[in-house]
């Protein structure tokens, strides 16, 4: 694993979280976010990709009062405080859903499929939800 480095006695790996599922219909989005938050304490090199229906996780204006679930979307805004700052969104997924960067509740870098491809190849561990 060429990407590994030793630093302060610990290994630093590149972790990629691939988020492909919509929120609320299933719990994967919420429980994936819980992994990211806990994982932040390990000071690894973390990136998040939102593609396919995963882009809906960070769509603005979520209001869950009617479904009586917890709205966890504000937590994505808190990721910065955990030093999780590399958020990528696939352009093709946004386009297919009629969404643009303006519809998202956090600052992200929009990438083409080709760029996501290169990002994936640059990782050590890929966690998919």
């Amino acid at each position, binding site marked *: 694993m060429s990407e590994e480095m030793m630093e302060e006695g610990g290994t630093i790996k590149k972790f990629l979280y691939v988020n492909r599922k919509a929120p609320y*219909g299933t*719990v994967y989005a919420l429980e994936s976010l819980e992994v990211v938050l806990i994982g932040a304490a390990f000071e690894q090199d973390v990136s998040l990709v939102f593609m396919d229906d995963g882009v809906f996780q960070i769509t603005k204006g979520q209001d869950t009062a009617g479904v009586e*679930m917890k709205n966890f979307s504000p937590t994505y805004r808190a990721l910065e405080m955990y030093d999780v700052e590399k958020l990528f969104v696939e352009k093709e997924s946004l386009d297919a859903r009629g969404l643009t960067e303006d519809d998202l509740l956090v600052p992200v870098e929009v990438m083409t499929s080709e760029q996501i491809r290169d990002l994936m190849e640059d990782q050590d561990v890929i966690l998919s939800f």
Partner: protein
Amino acid sequence: MKFAIQVNEGPYTHEASDTAYLFTRAALEKGHEIFRVFFYHDGVNNGTNLTTPPQDDRNVTNRWSELAAKHNLDLVVCVAAAQRRGIVDEGEMKRNGKSAQNIADGFRISGLGQLIEAGIQADRLVVFGD
């Protein structure tokens, strides 16, 4: 009108149990009768009394138990599906030599025939699942 409800997925993982609950509550509020709620597949996992969901989230199982108590609902967990997934009442515990039971208040374990009967007796059967 007489409704029957089928729930095919467990709590939290899929929205099915939430939608079924909110539908059932709305039907009762409108004066309809709920003949039975039948929990099948992973839906049987709604019937465990061992969950401790986060404080700021809904408690899916308790909500069903409370609705059942208030409206005298018949919440039936399929026995075959429950055996595959580990939902156990006192009878099942003894029969299968298990160390504990975990069935929540207001739920009972019974056979698949209860689903067919619900389909026959109710005016409408609505299925919620994955």
